C-alpha cells in the first residue's frame, strides 16, 4: 500500500456516518407517519367514542346514535373471510412446500397469489357483485361480503404460510421420518405446529387488511343500517359506514369516531395476536 493514495473524496468514516444518519432518519420518519395518522384519527375520533356510541343503534343514517350494527357486521365479514381463507391458504402452502416441490405448479400458484394480491379492491368488489351476489344468488349479504374478503385475504395468508412452512428446517422432517412417521403425521405433528407462529401472523395480516376494506364489500354487503340477524342478512361493516358518513356528508364527526373504533380494533387484534404468538414461540423454542 505504500505510495498508494486513497482517491476517495469522502472518507469511509464520513460515508459511514452519512449512511447511519440516513437509516436512522428513515426509521424515524416511518414511525412518525404512523404516530401522526393514529394520533390524528384518535384525537379527532375519540371525543365521540363512548359506550353509547359503541353499543347503540345508528339514528338518522348515522348522523347520531351509535355504530353497534357496523361493529357486528365487521366481525361477521372478517370472521367469514378468516374461516374460508385460512384453510385454503394454509392448505395451498402445505401442498406446494410438502408435496409439489419447486416446479411449474408452484411457480404458477405463486404468480397467481401475487396477481391476486395486486388487484385493486374495487375490482374485487365488482367481482363479488357479479359472482356471489348475482350468479350464485347469495344476494346482498354479509356472506357475500365475507366471501369477497376471503379471496382478498387469501394471497396474504398463502404467501406468509408458504414462506413460513418452507423455512421449517428439513432436519425436523428427517427426524420425524426417521422415527417411522408418515408424511401426513410429519406435517400435522411437526411441521404445522412449528409453523403456527408464522401462519397466525399471516392470518392476522390478512384479516386486518380485509377488516379495513370498504371498496371490496360495498357492492356485496348491501350497506343496510339494520342489525344483521344472520350471515344471509345485509350489513354495513365499519369502513363502509365511515365511507358513507364522510362522502354523503352525514356526519364527519361520527366518521372520525368510526375510524377511531376501527383503528382500535385493528390495534387490539395485532397486539393480542403478537402477544400470543410470542408466548407460543417461547414455549416451543424454550426461550
Amino acid at each position: 500500500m505504500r505510495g498508494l493514495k486513497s482517491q476517495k473524496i469522502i472518507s469511509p468514516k464520513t460515508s459511514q456516518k452519512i449512511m447511519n444518519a440516513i437509516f436512522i432518519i428513515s426509521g424515524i420518519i416511518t414511525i412518525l407517519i404512523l404516530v401522526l395518522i393514529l394520533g390524528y384519527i384518535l384525537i379527532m375520533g375519540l371525543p365521540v367514542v363512548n359506550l353509547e356510541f359503541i353499543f347503540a343503534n345508528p339514528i338518522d343514517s348515522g348522523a347520531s346514535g351509535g355504530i353497534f350494527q357496523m361493529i357486528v357486521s365487521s366481525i361477521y365479514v372478517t370472521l367469514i373471510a378468516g374461516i374460508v381463507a385460512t384453510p385454503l391458504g394454509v392448505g395451498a402452502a402445505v401442498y406446494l412446500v410438502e408435496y409439489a416441490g419447486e416446479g411449474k405448479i408452484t411457480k404458477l400458484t405463486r404468480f397467481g397469489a401475487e396477481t391476486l394480491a395486486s388487484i385493486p379492491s374495487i375490482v374485487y368488489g365488482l367481482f363479488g357483485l357479479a359472482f356471489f351476489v348475482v350468479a350464485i344468488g347469495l344476494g346482498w349479504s354479509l356472506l357475500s361480503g365475507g366471501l369477497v374478503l376471503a379471496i382478498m385475504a387469501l394471497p396474504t395468508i398463502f404467501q406468509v404460510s408458504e414462506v413460513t412452512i418452507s423455512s421449517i428446517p428439513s432436519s425436523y422432517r428427517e427426524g420425524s421420518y426417521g422415527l417411522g412417521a408418515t408424511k401426513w403425521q410429519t406435517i400435522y405433528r411437526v411441521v404445522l405446529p412449528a409453523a403456527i407462529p408464522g401462519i397466525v401472523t399471516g392470518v392476522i395480516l390478512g384479516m386486518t387488511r380485509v377488516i379495513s376494506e370498504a371498496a371490496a364489500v360495498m357492492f356485496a354487503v348491501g350497506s343496510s343500517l339494520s342489525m344483521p340477524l344472520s350471515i344471509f342478512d345485509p350489513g354495513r361493516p365499519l369502513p363502509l359506514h365511515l365511507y358513507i358518513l364522510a362522502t354523503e356528508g352525514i356526519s364527519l364527526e361520527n366518521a372520525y369516531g368510526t375510524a377511531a373504533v376501527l383503528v382500535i380494533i385493528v390495534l387490539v387484534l395485532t397486539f393480542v395476536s403478537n402477544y400470543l404468538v410470542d408466548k407460543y414461540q417461547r414455549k416451543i423454542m424454550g426461550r
Partner: protein
Amino acid sequence: MMNRIEVENLNVYFGDSHILKDINTEISKNTVTALIGPSGCGKSTFIRTINRMNDLIPSFSRTGNVYLDGEDVYDPKMDVVDLRKKVGMVFQKPNPFPKSIYENVAYGLKIHGITDDDAISARVEESLRSAALWDEVEDKLDNSAMGLSGGQQQRLCIARTIANNPEVILMDEPCSALDPISTTKVEDLIHKLKKDYTILIVTHNMQQATRVSKYTSFFLNGEIIESNLTDKLFVDPKDSKTEDYITGRFG
C-alpha cells in the same frame, strides 16, 4: 454368529452419480460398527439405505439388496414405517422437535398409535434413563427440548429413538456438533447401548472409532476398502489406502 444386517452387491446412484459401488458387508447383532472414511465417500448414504431414508431423495436409485434379519429391506411389501421403527436413526446435528422434552420422546409412540398415557410416560422415563438423560431433565419434562444444550439434545434424540424399541440404531456423526464433554457422554452411552442394540456409527474421528466400536469399515470413493475388527484394522491395516487414511496421509 447371527447377522442382523446383510448387504449384497449394493450400488447406489443419485441421478447419474454412482455413490456406492458393490457394497458387500455383514453386521452382526448387538455390536458397534464404525464407518470411517473421508467426507463424501458414501458412509452416510450407506447407513441411509438401511432405513430407506434415501427414498426421500427423488434422484435416488439402487441395485443390490439390503437384508434386515433376513428380510429384504427393499422388497415392495416392506412397510417403511415398520422398518424405520426397527432401524432408528440419530443425525449429525441434534434435531429435537420444537416440543417439550416429554413430547419429543413420546412422539414415536404416539405416531405408532399408542394412546395409553401411563404406558407412554413409563416408556418416556425408561428411554430417558437409558439415554442417561433422566437425571438432568426429570423436573423439566414440560420444557421445550430446544432449551437443552447440544449434548443433551443429542442424547434426547437417542432417547427418542430408543423409545421406539428399535433393533438397530444408525448414528450419522452423532458427536460432530458436540463439545468434548458431551462427546464423552454420548460415547459412554453407546457403550451402554450395545448390549441391546446393533449400532452403526459414521465418524470422522478415528479415536472415537477405536473407543466405541468392535468393527470398523473403511469407505473410500463409494467402496468399502477394508472391514475388520477395529483393533486389527487400526493396528494392522491390510490395504495401503487404509493405512494412508488412518495415519493421516489424506482425508
